[in-house]
């Protein structure tokens, strides 16, 4: 294939890619989450060293293949909230949860600014009236900022 043809194909591919990235841009960015509602990994890890009855409801709002490999012990899978079916699952999960109950959501699929899930989950819960929602701030990904830091991990469904 000539170089010109290859470049043409690349241009076409990038053009078609635009539709996907535009759709992704419609989702609220993680930066829209107030700093006061973020919790850093070390702080959350310390806060989990308490009896389970005192712990917040921990919800993983990312992708199942990642959850199965590694998640925070005691957390439940409720994602992916960047997609409508994930939001539906999240809303269903919190139906019976008190509006003032502490909830921590997390994902870690991608670099923070690229995560398609956490902001959607946060705003959905706030819209439902939950007043104590925190989001685990995972700067790079769950592997880098949680697993490799040696914080507790579980795996499987």
């Amino acid at each position: 294939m000539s170089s010109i043809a290859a470049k043409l194909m690349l241009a076409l591919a990038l053009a078609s890619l635009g539709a996907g990235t535009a759709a992704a841009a419609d989702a609220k960015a993680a930066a829209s989450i107030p700093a006061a509602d973020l919790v850093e990994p070390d702080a959350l890890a310390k806060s989990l060293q308490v009896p389970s009855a005192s712990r917040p409801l921990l919800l993983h709002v990312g992708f199942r293949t990642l959850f199965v490999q590694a998640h925070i012990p005691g957390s439940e899978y409720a994602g992916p909230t960047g997609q409508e079916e994930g939001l539906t699952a999240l809303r269903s999960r919190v139906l019976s949860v008190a509006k003032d109950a502490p909830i921590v959501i997390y994902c870690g699929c991608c670099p923070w600014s690229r995560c398609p899930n956490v902001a959607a989950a946060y705003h959905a819960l706030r819209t439902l009236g939950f007043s104590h929602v925190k989001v685990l701030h995972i700067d790079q990904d769950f592997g880098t900022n949680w697993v490799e830091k040696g914080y507790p991990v579980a795996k499987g469904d």
Partner: protein
Amino acid sequence: MPPARIGYLPPITAALTLTLAVLAPRAHGAPPTPHAAAAPAGAVAAIAPDFERDDLDGQRRQLRSYRGKLVLLSFWATWCEPCRLEAPRFSHWQQQYGPRGLQVLGISMDDTAAPAVEFVHQLNLAYPVMLGDAELAERFGGVLGLPLAFLIDPRGRIIARYRGEPDLARMEAEIRAALPQP
């Protein structure tokens, strides 16, 4: 935070570094639990773990069968925006460097095949894509964030790992440098 990256390593250095990564204690924080889900990210074998599975077009693929080629093994997903941006470049590299011995292989970590099939056909990617899962991910030390890619030399050794948003110019330079000599 800049993208995490081990980067290009001469083969001997790569083997030593990866071995040390396996042996090294965890950096800090709480002690690991018995349920630690994945090996530390650096704990990948110097020799890439072999695997065999069907690609999205139903053709059987085995990593070992690409010995003799420089393999760029890309873990990605349609929900990963940086992955969506790098895929057309990888496809271009496959066309440009394929005749010189490069083989790009994609592993989609989407929960189902449907979005990956749509994406691959939409972009007409020039390299095979397979559906990944937790079992395959753990063979490579865990795929706990995307994008993630491995550069595997013609002898099957992992010589570089790229994690996070890639510096594509640097990755391409390292690929060009590692292409099999004619």
